[in-house]
């Protein structure tokens, strides 16, 4: 490379070099053809499932779980439910 061919990296010459090299480096590369469709499909899935971002499953509150469990048990056996209820209260106090 002769001095005439050697690129100028001083002053504004560097800016021009960088601008050209960086733009040439990416210009020919584009996202794959299916990227748009994949994006919209992923967004639709999230929308349909109404999941809070990013993937957190909407869980019932802990208290609701307890209430559901207690209610279901009570219909099966009142005595067992009473004993269970006492244990649950004790557990709550310990917690």
């Amino acid at each position: 490379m002769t001095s005439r061919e050697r690129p100028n990296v001083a002053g504004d010459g560097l800016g021009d070099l960088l601008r050209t090299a960086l733009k040439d480096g990416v210009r020919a590369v584009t996202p794959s053809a299916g990227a748009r469709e994949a994006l919209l499909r992923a967004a639709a899935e999230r929308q349909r499932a109404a999941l809070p971002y990013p993937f957190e499953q909407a869980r019932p509150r802990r208290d609701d779980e307890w209430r559901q469990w207690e209610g279901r048990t009570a219909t099966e056996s009142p005595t067992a439910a009473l004993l269970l209820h006492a244990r649950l209260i004790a557990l709550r106090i310990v917690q």
Partner: protein
Amino acid sequence: MPVVHEDGQLVARIRERDLSALGALYDKYRLQVFHTALAVTRDRQAAEDILQEAFLKVHAYANRIDLGVPLAPWLYRVTVNLSYTWATRQAKWRTSLETLIDRLVAPPRVAPEGYFEARDLQTRIQRAVDALPFNQRVVIILYYLSDLSLKEIAYILDCPVGTAKSRLHYGREALRRQLAQSLEPQAAPVLEMSYDFT
């Protein structure tokens, strides 16, 4: 009534679960996001992942996006943050891999000779940019590739304008040194010649 930017109108439609609006924003900004991510990561697959993740964030956070301003700065900020996360993970992975190689291979590794012996100028410049610290590399890319002002870059990086300016300055200086060194004319090889006089 507040003025709604044209991007804001699309974001408002996304809030109403209109995915065609997300598609329209994607069509408008996909190359900017993709090329920025590609320039920072130098990894096509990573750039595609970042592209999708950035627009999924638009979808997820549509309710928080300001409708009165263009979306581009917000998208650049998300792109840079995602690229940073990717680069950090890569660096950790590379470090652990290098450590492993160091343990497995007895002779000490030496810095690759002739790193800058790449034949073409673009490759040399790209390698020099890749070698910059992440903060300087991002500013160089946003300034020279994306043609953003220092004020816009400062917003994207969430830093004062002076900081963006200083990163640009140090990045340029580092590039100037590396490129000047790589473009130095090589000493001509000494040819051993012999003559047979018969």
